[in-house]
């Protein structure tokens, strides 16, 4: 990693400048992460009196535990659903906005503000309009003969949290797709139009392939978002229920540790999640390095 050709000499100053950041990192990031790693190897008895070293037993138990495996598959469904729904909607809106000349900035303004809404608030909003007794959507669904109830139906609850999570993420994906679309050379599209390609044909054979770097980047970001930033949506609405149907991994860490007080298992789950984040971050950085030469 390079610095400037010319730098300041300094024996103490650079360390002093770095100190605040490094101290916060050590105390609130590295130390707790180390603690999680250490606790994942221990087991406490029911009263918290005795702690024994159990090696990798906590991990082995997790992968034999039906509830944990269920949480894994719930997370996959949730992350894929949120990513696909939100990216498809954002791509449709971005490529449509990109056609516009005069109204482009108006539509953009109307579409970006949900980024500012907290995930918890997004969850409560959708929880409210889907509320089985007073909500407006179940009322309309009832007219076509569907009984919506996210308090008893796992599938309904999953759809609800996917809607809330995807809704909040549309504006983010929209902005990145729009930036990607605007960087595609207009001459390519004009050439195809002169050759008689319709807008839809142009989209699938020219625009979409050229958007691949943006699409891959957004896929990774969206999966990270769905796995880690949606804790608030779950906690403020379904709380993992009904019957574990929306108990995603990051919520289970909290529920097992804070509510269930099963520290060893919760710490082991933390460690697994950290490994997943590290892997996803690595993939993300790989793509960023390669995104220039598509």
């Amino acid at each position, binding site marked *: 990693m*390079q*610095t*400037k050709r*010319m730098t*300041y000499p*300094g024996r103490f*100053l650079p*360390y002093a*400048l*770095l100190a*605040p*950041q490094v101290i*916060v*990192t050590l105390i*609130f*990031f590295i*130390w*707790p992460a180390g*603690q999680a790693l250490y606790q994942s190897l221990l087991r406490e008895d029911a009263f918290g009196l005795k702690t024994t070293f159990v090696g990798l037993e906590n991990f082995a138990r997790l992968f034999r535990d039906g509830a944990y495996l269920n949480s894994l598959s719930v997370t996959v469904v949730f992350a894929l659903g949120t990513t696909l729904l939100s990216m498809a909607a954002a791509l449709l*809106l971005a490529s*449509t906005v990109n*056609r*516009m000349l005069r*109204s482009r900035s108006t*539509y953009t303004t109307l*579409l970006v503000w949900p*980024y*500012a*809404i*907290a*995930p*918890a*608030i997004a969850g*409560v*909003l*959708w929880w*409210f*309009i889907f509320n089985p007794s*007073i909500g*407006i959507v179940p*009322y309309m669904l009832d007219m076509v003969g569907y009984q919506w109830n996210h308090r008893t139906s796992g599938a309904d609850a999953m759809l609800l949290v996917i809607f809330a999570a995807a809704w909040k993420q549309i504006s*983010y994906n929209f902005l*990145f797709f729009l*930036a990607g679309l605007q960087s595609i050379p207009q001459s390519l*599209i004009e050439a195809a139009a002169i050759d008689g390609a319709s*807008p839809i044909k142009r989209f699938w054979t020219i625009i979409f392939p050229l958007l691949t770097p943006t699409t891959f*980047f957004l896929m990774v970001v969206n999966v990270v978002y769905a796995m*880690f*930033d949606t*804790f*608030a949506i779950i*906690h*403020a609405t379904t709380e993992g229920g009904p019957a574990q149907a929306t108990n995603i991994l*990051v919520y289970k*860490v909290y529920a097992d540790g804070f509510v269930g007080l099963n*520290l060893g298992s919760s*710490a082991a789950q*933390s460690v697994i999640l950290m490994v997943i984040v*590290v892997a996803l*971050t690595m993939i993300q950085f790989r793509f960023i390095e390669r995104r220039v030469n598509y």
Partner: protein
Amino acid sequence: MVENRPWANLIAHLVLIAGVALVVFPVYVAIIASTHSLSGLLQGTLPLLPGDQGIENYKLMWQSGVSNAGAPPAGLMLWNSFVMAMAITVGKLFISLLSAFAIVYFRFRFRMFFFWLIFVTLMLPVEVRIIPTFQVVADLNMLNSFAGLSIPLIASATATFLFRQFFMTIPEEMLEAARVDGAGPLKFFKDILMPLSVTNIAALFVIMFIYGWNQYLWPLIITTDPDYYTIVMGIQRMTSEENPQWHLVMAALVMAALPPVLVILFMQRLFVKGLTETEK
């Protein structure tokens, strides 16, 4: 647009109007619900036109809150949210500027080590290491305080990277000229780097403020004293009741969403710059 197709244009506008309507709908319902009385909401289905209880609902929520549901007055919670968001934002910008300056303009032992140490924070979201972090903050006696709400969240790898990237694009001649004129490192930082970074600082400010304002899990677990409740977590406390008072919940929700939404609407250009550049 390459050619003129009136029908395609019409369809495009319809698609966009439908998209905007879908995006706006949940918030529209919330605003409408906040202007009705609770009994108005509970009879049958949700009304779609404003009611006449709006002023009373907001006044009640602002001044007294819903104390039996554990929600203090919204005025207090909004203030707490504001203090926390500002502390996080200013703290993040301050320590990231300093560390990016150290990494770019100095050569010293363990430079790479520190760089990677900061990088690691990118990979450890608070949700993942929540219990041990809570223990650390409890041991430091920082529960129920603004320090506890903000300091654990102010380390920022993204801001440090962005500033590092930006400092690398500043011409070498700047430093050479400054050194010839006898400016020391701190003077160079204060009088040359800071003024050049103003746009970047402003763009990150918008993103960080929204991040800070929208914090949820952290304030939820480290505050037990209602004097430190923030608005986003206060709403959750009101909804987790047996029979939530939806009209007041929605009034609080509109108040909680308004500040960050206004920030985005009024600083849209900075927001887009901050968002697209921090993530790349």
